[in-house]
C-alpha cells in the first residue's frame, strides 16, 4: 500500500487556466522522489494538496491508505506528514526557537515538560542546541532553514514533503542539510531546482509538464 497516492488530480486557481490536468503520483514507504518542472508548473500546489491546504477540483487524494476529502480527514494527515515550506519565515512564527519547535508537540496534546524534552532531544540530534533560546527572526537564513526542519521532525512524521529546501542556503548549510536528510528513515517528496542536491537526496523523479506527471528514472 503506497503512503501517498494522488490519482488524476485536476486543479485550477480561480480565474486562471488549469494548472494540474490529471496528475497522478504514488510514494511507497521509505521511497524518495523528486518532482521536476519549471516555475509555476504546480509542484508546490501538488504538495499542498497532500496535506489538504488546497482541494483538487477533480481526482483523488489518498494518504496512508485512506481517501481524504474533507478538512477533518486531513487533521490526521497533518500530524503524520511533515511539510517544510519554501520560505522559512512562513514557518517560524513563534518568538523563540524552542517555542516554535514545541508548537507542534503541544498541538499533539503533549504536556509542557514532554514538549520541552522533545525540543531538546531534536535539537541535540540535529546539533542545533546552541540555537534553542534564540529569537527566530534574528536567525540567519541557513539557521532558519535547519530550525524549520527541526520543527517538522519533532512531530516524528512518517513522510517528509520538502519544498525548495535549499533556497537561500550557503554550501556549508546545504551540506548539513544533505547529511541530516540522508540520515532520516522517512519517505520523502522533494521539490528542488538544484540537480546536485536532488541527486544526493532523491534521485528518482517525476516530471510535471502541462499539468501531468510522468515518471523519469
Amino acid at each position, binding site marked *: 500500500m503506497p503512503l501517498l497516492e494522488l490519482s488524476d488530480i485536476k486543479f485550477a486557481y480561480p480565474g486562471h487556466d488549469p494548472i494540474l490536468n490529471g496528475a497522478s503520483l504514488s510514494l511507497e514507504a521509505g521511497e524518495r522522489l523528486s518532482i521536476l518542472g519549471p516555475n509555476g508548473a504546480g509542484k508546490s500546489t501538488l504538495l499542498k494538496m497532500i496535506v489538504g491546504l488546497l482541494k483538487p477540483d477533480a481526482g483523488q487524494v489518498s494518504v496512508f491508505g485512506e481517501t481524504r476529502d474533507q478538512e477533518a480527514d486531513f487533521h490526521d494527515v497533518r500530524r503524520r506528514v511533515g*511539510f517544510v515550506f519554501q520560505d522559512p519565515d512562513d514557518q517560524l*512564527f513563534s518568538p523563540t526557537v524552542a517555542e516554535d519547535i514545541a508548537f507542534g508537540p503541544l498541538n499533539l496534546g503533549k504536556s509542557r515538560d514532554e514538549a520541552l524534552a522533545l525540543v531538546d532531544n531534536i535539537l541535540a540530534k540535529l546539533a542545533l542546541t546552541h540555537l534553542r533560546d534564540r529569537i527566530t527572526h534574528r536567525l540567519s537564513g541557513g539557521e532558519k532553514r535547519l530550525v524549520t526542519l527541526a520543527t517538522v521532525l519533532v512531530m516524528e512524521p512518517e513522510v517528509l514533503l520538502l519544498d525548495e529546501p535549499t533556497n537561500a542556503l550557503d554550501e556549508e548549510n546545504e551540506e548539513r542539510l544533505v547529511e541530516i536528510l540522508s540520515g532520516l528513515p522517512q519517505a520523502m517528496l522533494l521539490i528542488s531546482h538544484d540537480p546536485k542536491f536532488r541527486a544526493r537526496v532523491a534521485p528518482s523523479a517525476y516530471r510535471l509538464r502541462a499539468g501531468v506527471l510522468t515518471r523519469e528514472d
Partner: protein
Amino acid sequence: MSQPLLAAGSEKSTSDSLLSRGSLAALDPRMRIVVAAIYAIVVVSLSDFAALGLALGFAFCLLPLSGLPIKRTLKRMIGMDSFIIFTLLILPFSVPGTPIFTVWGFVASYEGLWQAIEIALTANAAILGLMCLVGSMEPVAMGHGLHALRVPERLVQLMMFTIRYIEVLREEYMRLRAAMKVRGFRPGTNWHTYRSFGYLVGIMLVRALERSERILGAMKCRGFTGRFVLLERFKMQKRDWTFVALTGLAILALIAVELRHAIA
C-alpha cells in the same frame, strides 16, 4: 542585542550580583512590569517637590542598572520633554498669582512656575522609570510577562506576531524601495511619486495578506487548532524579591516624603 530571554527569571540562574550593569534584564519581567506600574502611579500622584526630586533621583539610579545606553536614553527623555515644553512655558503666564516678571504685558506667576516644574519633574521621573524597568526588556520577554500577568491572550499574540513579522515586513519594504531606486526613482512632489508610493503600500498589503495565509497553512500542517501555548513559566527568585523589597522601600519613602507635613 540578543539577551538571554528564556532566562528572564526562569531557567538559568546567573551569578551576577543585583547591582551589576544591565542586571535588571535578568529579573522577572512580570515583576518589572508590576513594579513599573506601581512606581508610575505613585509618581503621578506626588505633588511635593522633595518627593518628586527623590523619584527622579531613584529613576536615575535605575538607569545604569538597566543596561540601556545612557546617552541615548536621556536623549529620548528629552524627546518626550519637547512634547510638553509649550505647556511648561505657558503655565507661569496662564496661572494667576504672585507676579515674578512681565513679558509683553503678560505676568508670570510663582504659582504657575511651580506647577510647570511639578509637571516637568513628574513626567521625567515617570518616563525614565518606565524606560529603565520596562523599556530595557526584550519585547519577547515583555510578551511573556504580560501573558503571565493574565493580559488577554489575543492581545499578547497580536503583539508577538507583530514582533515576529515587523522585521520581515521592513525587509520587504527595503527591498522594494531599493528596487525602485535602482530604476531611477527619486521621490518628489508629483503624481508619479504619490502613485508609486501608493503601489508600494498596496503591494506590501497584498504580500502581507498572502504571507499570513502561508503562515496559517504552515501552522495547520503542524496541527494548529486555534489555541496557543506559551512555554515560559516564570518563577520569582531571591534576587527578584530583593529588588521588590528595595523598590518597595523606595516607593514608601516617596510616599513618606510627600506626606511628611500631613503626618507631622
